[in-house]
């Protein structure tokens, strides 16, 4: 499993700080340069151990995403009680009227 895959990435190659920064962006985690570097060396160590699964022959084995084999279960579409709006909003960090307030999502200049 150390051959590059279709995208050209090479699982066996060292992780660069740029890759770690990219992953942090994907994960929406703001981290300082020092934190990114610490994270890089931890990832190298943990992925080094994870590489032990490369030694297992998995040819022809179907991936198993779940502990039990089950297909989608359908339930009757029955209306039921739901949480009170006030109770839900009580946990929101910023509220206006009966809505959760967020910073501007769309820039007024983009024609939206």
């Amino acid at each position: 499993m150390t051959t590059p895959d279709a995208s050209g990435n090479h699982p066996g190659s060292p992780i660069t700080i740029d890759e770690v920064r990219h992953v942090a962006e994907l994960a929406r985690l703001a981290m300082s340069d020092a934190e990114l570097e610490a994270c890089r060396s931890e990832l190298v160590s943990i992925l080094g151990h994870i590489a032990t699964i490369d030694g297992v022959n998995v040819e022809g084995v179907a991936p198993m995403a779940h502990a039990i084999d089950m297909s989608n279960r359908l339930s009757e579409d029955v209306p039921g009680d739901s949480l009170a709006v006030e109770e839900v909003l009580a946990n929101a960090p910023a509220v206006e009227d009966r809505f959760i307030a967020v910073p501007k999502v769309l820039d007024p200049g983009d024609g939206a």
Partner: protein
Amino acid sequence: MSTHGTISELAGRIRTREMTAVAALEACLGSIDRYDGTISSFQCTSADIARARAEAIDRRIDAGEDVGPLAGVPIAIKDNIVTRGEPTTCGSRILEQFQSPYDATVIHRLNDAGAVPFGKTRCDEFAMGSGTEYCAFGPVHNPWDTSRVPGGSSGGSAAAVAAGFCPASIGSDTGGSIRQPASLCGVVGLKPTYGRVSRYGLVSFGPSLDQIGPFARTVEDAALVLQAIAGEDVHDSTTIDTPAEDYLKDLHVPIDGLRIGLPREYLDAGNDPAVNDMVNAAVEIYRGLGAEIVDVQLPLTDVGIATYYVIGPAEASSNLARFDGIRYGRRVAPGAGEGLFDLYARSRGEGFGAEVRRRIMLGTYVLSAGYYDAYYKRALQVRRLIRREFEDVFQQCDVLMGPTTPAPAFRIGSLTDPLSMYLCDRYTVNANIAGICGVSLPAGFAEVEGRSLPLGLQLQAPALGERTLLRAARMFEANTDHHDRTPDLDAMAMDS
């Protein structure tokens, strides 16, 4: 009352009005007031809500009602399970202000069985850790030696029962988070089969691995709590739709002829010598009870941690995306010129602790373009092989035995390298990966630097094999006295 009593004794006394549910609750709260300053097992207690529950139980008993098998029994709840009217912090700054808007299914079921849920126990942040050191509000201390961890992530739930604060508690187990702290604290900890207990209201970490289960002082008590919480739930479509069985029925049936597998891989030379001695002593006890000890092999034990640290973080990175500072949880004050991306990234970066960030990063990495096949898909293939390996071995034996952990409790702050901590779960993760059930029970002590540190024996059984599992556990317990020993909290309080 002795807070070290069992559920059956306590519920019996409450049912016959020898004692009130309110008095049982007050005894627990009093014991927590007196000793939990040393242990820190509770994040909060909710005396008012619990007193109202206990009073209602007493009134119903006075009126001649049968209030259920857990009549008036105070039960502590891990702080990653929602309990209406109380905080649920998951040990995280990001949920420090969160108030649970509803009760988890297990809370409803405990109430229906007459129990009195009364407080929230500390855990590693979002249940990620093996020592409850990664609780943002401070670590939990092991009641047997307060300089050591209680295990994790359900360390508060394990320590609370070990300290005698309550007869039982609820935890969650994603890779060993019930069994490992049970082992390190000298109590019984049961991880039921995946899907046996509803996860509705459990803050999700790895939804294909997570399972809720009980801590108790005895196997029978663990079975009583399982009986109350097990079963299908319309709110959790991954619950198993076959009805829960009678988990108490077979408990006292002799195990003559039961085949107990001892995997060679479980008596690893890397284990603490006291751990291997404990397993060998357990083998002799089981032989004496007429069980057949079968030599088996589980070679994929060695790749369990590697597989788990792909699947668990992958699922966690996706699940924890919901904590974005928008609908609930901590939100940073927006800086000048900052947009929504910065709000998400800074709220998460500042709200999550180091271990949670590490797992989100690892999970995001193994799921990212170019690495998915090499890591995630491959781990899922190994997962199937691990399940097959268990299925094959359970053709040769009814139950597996071995140590729960490779060593007794470690010192708080001593495992600084994440990987060394991950390897503590070497014997427990594969049960989650395969979805089978497992239990840890008190099986001996290691004498370390003048302290007795508990050691746990782990038994595992096939999916839905709880009856056999608990029977094998109960027969060991009936022939040993490790579970009768309790830590000396007065001595601990003086030391600290």
